[in-house]
């Protein structure tokens, strides 16, 4: 029904989905995290196919370079590395699968129903990094600022949260004392 799918796309899509499935099914947490990075990489490749170079590299930089590492660290810090996660193929498990499947079905149905197969293809947009930077600094400056603040707050908050309570308390009191 869908025409003109490139072989590269099929490969990357397969890679992405396979990674995601592995993350869902593997039992060793670290394996899950690693297969997750595969998914991230696949998504980055998909971005590249969509001529979104900047977003693709940003995806790699942020997700593989930061988030994946963070996840792995968290797994090791929570002693989750070696353990094989207990899993019961109970009713809830199947129920969840059913729900997920239903969501997928709904989405696909909406997509396929709404879009004509083989949609009109826009010519490659001439989007340079300069234009992105300009947009960030002109039209999207307020969101940019807000995200900047958010990141700062998240950074500090994560540090405080992950810090041993007594230490954090001491620091907070010291700050509060001023």
């Amino acid at each position, binding site marked *: 029904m869908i025409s003109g799918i490139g072989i590269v796309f099929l490969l990357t899509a397969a890679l992405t989905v396979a990674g995601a499935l592995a993350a869902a099914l593997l039992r060793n947490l670290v394996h899950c995290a690693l297969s997750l990075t595969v998914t991230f990489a696949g998504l980055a490749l998909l971005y590249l196919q969509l001529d979104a170079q900047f977003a693709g590299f940003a995806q790699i930089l942020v997700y593989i*370079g930061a988030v994946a590492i963070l996840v792995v660290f968290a797994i090791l810090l929570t002693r989750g590395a070696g353990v094989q996660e207990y899993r019961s193929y109970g009713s809830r498990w199947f129920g969840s699968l059913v729900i997920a499947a239903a969501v997928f079905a709904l989405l696909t149905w909406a997509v396929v129903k709404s879009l004509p197969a083989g949609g009109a293809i826009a010519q490659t947009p001439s989007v340079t990094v300069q234009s992105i930077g300009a947009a960030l600094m002109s039209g999207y400056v307020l969101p940019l600022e807000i995200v900047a603040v958010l990141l700062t707050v998240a950074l500090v908050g994560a540090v405080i949260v992950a810090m041993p309570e007594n230490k954090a308390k001491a620091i907070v009191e010291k700050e509060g004392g001023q």
Partner: protein
Amino acid sequence: MSFVTTLDQIFVLLQRWIAGFFPLWLQPAVGTILGVVAIVAAFPGIFALTTVLERKGLGRIQNRLGPNRVGPLGILQPVADGIKSLTKEDIVPLSADAVVHFLAPVVLVIAVFLGFAVLPIGRNMVLADMDSGLLFFFAIGASTELSIFMAGWSSRNKYSLLGAMRAVAQMISYEVPLLLSSVVVVMITGSLSTVKIVEAQSGFTGVFPHWYVFTPWGFAGFVLFTIAALAETNRSPFDLPEGESELVAGYFTEYSGFKFALFFLGEYLGMFSIAGFAITLFLGGWGAPLSVLGFVPSWAWFFVKLFGAVVFFIWLRGTLPRLRQDQLMNFAWKFMLPMALLNLLVAGAWRFMGEGWLRWVISSAVLLLAYVGLGRVLMRNQHLGARSYRYAE
């Protein structure tokens, strides 16, 4: 086409010539493949040379001869090493996670090789002139950390794990100043494309080139970048992750034979690529250091600079002692990061202060003051002198 330009473009012409044998629709692909082959051939060669250079150089620094048996003056030492590592038995620990254990070095080498794709080796000699090449390089560099973690974790060995943890922590910490110090160049050039960056530095005033290292912010950026690069490549004095005296060989303790060789290769290639980027960003890439030397082919200049950088790294390794973990982190977060951020501000000011000597004075003064101030603050209660051991006495 004059002789100089021919010599300069020799490899490009070669590529075109070979690609010419193929049907038109294949030519781009073939061209790319040829470039890849060239890189994959050239840099491991340099790697081989570097190993012997390093071993002999370190030997001289440590007042010994270094390898001198294989071939004349031990030149063929790397060949022997290669054969040895290929023929050695490949040991995989029983409890190790075999798949990950195997994937780790492969991922590392692939990632490192990818890094060379956007490195302009000479005029018109870049594999992929991406609009956001620099970002690509950093993205790839980020993904090497993962391979190191895989190696460390999969070996099921506490030394490996510790080494990997150290390495990842260190690389993440130093990636920040690395990025920030190179953002300066991007700000001034107004582009993330490595080719554009090199071209922006290709001018001359009199006989002197417009390299960014010759500006206050450029110099600061260059120093910061070099330090961060040393840490990124786990070279001494930042080689805690593989500190022999503490954790055998860090994250590749459990590696042997060819995989070990791959790690070795990956490390050195990483060093080359990051040095290459230091050259691209601050030392004018393939540009000649003096306008009168323009006749020398561009790629030659690049490799000369690369050689210089490598020698510098080796020299450092032979000279500097290893840092402690806390010193490492403090240095990253309390010195490098603020300096890099300040450098951003200075570069921005430089961009908008217009021509004239004033901006030179101001930016140099600001950076110098910050350097002194930060240094003093960091050194305040650091009593340097004979090292005191807390536990072993």
